[in-house]
Structure formats: structure tokens, C-alpha cells
């Protein structure tokens, strides 16, 4: 039971977008897919949901190919950044169409969510602001009867109150009806504790793939006087550094050497997800992931 992405590569006009990407998406888990602009996140999500075909590699759901397979495709849903709805159609009408496409579309829930977000279902899609377009697409994503839901930029244009409401509704619907959500977002701090597992896509490859606590367990800030910090982190996987006056902080991803004495002047703390992400993806040359 899972989605298996195996050795997927993709290029457009001789430019690499994805390079040998493999990962597993399990049922009933919340994932984060993080990556900088242009890292290939949307392409990956489009390939998984059969909107584009990969040049190389396979995507399977429960060991069945997902390429043009109606049975498996009905079980996944992609809320994408692009707007696929016709501008002049009213939202109510769009919900009618979606209900016809997905037999078990939860219409009452959609209407309840619309009310909570203050979305008028008599409006035409083209008249909506960026934020309300996102909200409408989110509502559809929450109400389709899919086992795997991919949310590409789900908080695009949402104000703080609506983001709060979105996170609450996500937990509510996930608790009531556990299913998989894969969230691709730039607001890492807001989802850091919400996701169970994280993928980082950097320079077209998956460079981090693991449970959030396990990943953070291996991420450290070593700070203190420049000399002591540099001595202590020699040979460790230093992914970034900050300097302030005579104080140096080295960010380390990977194991520390336990047999090395820690000088009193050196402080060791854990990094948070956002800081880890920034340092891992800052420059190609500096980031070496074990």
C-alpha cells in the first residue's frame, strides 16, 4: 500500500527538471515537499498525478502503473498552482461538475467550508482574488474522495487568518478521515510540526527524505568562539555558517563525533526545519548531504 516513484527523470528543452527521483508515499500520512523556486516540485507532482509523462522512470500505486489508469487515478487528487477552471463559470456549477466526476464528492462539507472561509459560491471563478481562487481549489481538494491528496502551494495568497483556518481544517479532516496529504509550500515554519515526513528537492534531486524528528535529530548549530567552533567541527558535514563579532555558528547536518571532547565555550543546539532547509539549499557547492 503506497505510491512508489522510481528513478523518475524529466527534461524540458534539454534542461533537466528532475534527475533520478525516487520516493515512497505511504497511506494516511502528512508529507511536506520542500524546495526552492524552480527545484522541480510542481513537475514532480504533475508526473505523480499523470498530468505529464516522465521521460524516464515509473510511478505506481499499490504496484499498479498509474499511467492512464482510471482506477488508480481516481484515488489521487492534485490541487495545482495553475488555474484549470474556466473564468466565466460559477463556483456552484464547478462543484456540480466535480460531483459528477467524483461520485462521493462531499458536497455538504464543501458548502460548510465555503461558509467558513466566507466564499460566495454564486461568484464566477474569474472574479475571485488569488486568495479566494486558492480557497476554492482547497475546498475541492478536501471534499474529493481520494486517498492521496497533493496540495501545490495551498496557502498562496491566503492571509494569516485564512491560513490558520486552513491548517485547522486540514487537521480536522485528516483526523476524521485519515488519508495522505502531500503539501508543497514555502512557508516552512507554519507546517514544520504539522508534517510527519519531509522530502527536500534541491537541484532536481531528492536530498532529504525522512521523518521530521529523525532529520532534526541530525541537525545541529555549534556556536562559540571562532577557533573553538572551527576545531570542533573539523571533518563534520558543515552545511553553513554565520558570524557575529567573535562568535561563530556552524550548522552541521549528520552525526557528531561523540568521542570528541566538547569545549565549555562551545554550545550545541538543534536546528529547526526552516533553518536546516535554508542552509541545505543555499548553494550547490556548500551542501553535501550524507
Amino acid at each position: 500500500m503506497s505510491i512508489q516513484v522510481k528513478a523518475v527523470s524529466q527534461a524540458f528543452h534539454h534542461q533537466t527538471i528532475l534527475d533520478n527521483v525516487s520516493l515512497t508515499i505511504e497511506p494516511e500520512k502528512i508529507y511536506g515537499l520542500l524546495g526552492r523556486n524552480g527545484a522541480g516540485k510542481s513537475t514532480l507532482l504533475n508526473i505523480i498525478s499523470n498530468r505529464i509523462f516522465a521521460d524516464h522512470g515509473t510511478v505506481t500505486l499499490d504496484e499498479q502503473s498509474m499511467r492512464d489508469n482510471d482506477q488508480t487515478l481516481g484515488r489521487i487528487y492534485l490541487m495545482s498552482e495553475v488555474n484549470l477552471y474556466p473564468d466565466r463559470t460559477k463556483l456552484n456549477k464547478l462543484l456540480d461538475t466535480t460531483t459528477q466526476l467524483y461520485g462521493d464528492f462531499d458536497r455538504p462539507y464543501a458548502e460548510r467550508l465555503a461558509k467558513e472561509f466566507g466564499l460566495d459560491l454564486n461568484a464566477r471563478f474569474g472574479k475571485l482574488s488569488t486568495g479566494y481562487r486558492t480557497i476554492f481549489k482547497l475546498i475541492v481538494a478536501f471534499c474529493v474522495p481520494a486517498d492521496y491528496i497533493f496540495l501545490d502551494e495551498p496557502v498562496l495568497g491566503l492571509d494569516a487568518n485564512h491560513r490558520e483556518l486552513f491548517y485547522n481544517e486540514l487537521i480536522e479532516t485528516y483526523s476524521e478521515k485519515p488519508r495522505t496529504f502531500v503539501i508543497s509550500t514555502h512557508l516552512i515554519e507554519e507546517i514544520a510540526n504539522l508534517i510527519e515526513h519531509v522530502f527536500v528537492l534541491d537541484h532536481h534531486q531528492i536530498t532529504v527524505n525522512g521523518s521530521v524528528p529523525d532529520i532534526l535529530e541530525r541537525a545541529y548549530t555549534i556556536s562559540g568562539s571562532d577557533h573553538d567552533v572551527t576545531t570542533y567541527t573539523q571533518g563534520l558535514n558543515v552545511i553553513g555558517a554565520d558570524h557575529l563579532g567573535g562568535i561563530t555558528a556552524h550548522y552541521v547536518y549528520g552525526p557528531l563525533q561523540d568521542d570528541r571532547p566538547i569545549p565549555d565555550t562551545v554550545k550545541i543546539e538543534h536546528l529547526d526545519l526552516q533553518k536546516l532547509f535554508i542552509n541545505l539549499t543555499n548553494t550547490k557547492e556548500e551542501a553535501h548531504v550524507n
Partner: protein
Amino acid sequence: MQFNFNSTEPIYLQVAEQIEEAIFARTFSEGEQVPSTTEISKEFHINPATVLKGMNILVDANLIEKRRGVGMFVVPGAQGRIVEKRRNQFYDDYVKNLVSEARKLHITKPELAQLIERGFQAK
């Protein structure tokens, strides 16, 4: 209920610590229901599996118990057990640091004893 989370310690441990603290302070009395996984999850935007992992630490420590279909409740005697545990940890958690800091500041043993005396007087 007010939780304070930091970003450097595993969240499931913080969930366990914060609930334990609330039981210790009698915010949740014995026999009373503690907030559900979903409630905590929603309030602080923490993955429900993470919250459950934290709660299970307290279940294993026999501080809260699951009542099927109802929720989690504070076990009778839980507060006393937390007090007992903290008394046992008092030396490691507080006294060691106190003496170590005193040494760095060249505070002598009699001076430290005097300061402790003053602390008790002030209460």
C-alpha cells in the same frame, strides 16, 4: 491551556512535558479528562501522530489512561507520582547546576548556604 514550544527539542517530548506540567500544577486534576489529540493538534498545528506519541509517554508512565471511545484521563495518584519523580531528579536538575555556577562565581559553601537560607526567608 497554554503551551510554550521551542523549536530545538523534539515536539513529542514537549507535548509530554507540557501535559505533565499541567497535571503537576493541577490544571488537569486527577480523574479529569485531558484535551484530545485532535484538540491539541489543531490548537498548535502539530501532527496528530506526534501528539499521540507524546501522550503515549504519559500513558506508559501511568499518568494518564485511555478510556475507549471517550478520551484520555488523569490517573488517580498521578500528581503524587510526578512530585516523587521530581524530588528524585531535584539533585540532578537543580543542585548540580547551582553548585557549578556558584563555583564559577567563587561563591563559597557557607555563602551558598546563606543564600539558600535567604531564599527560604523570602518565601
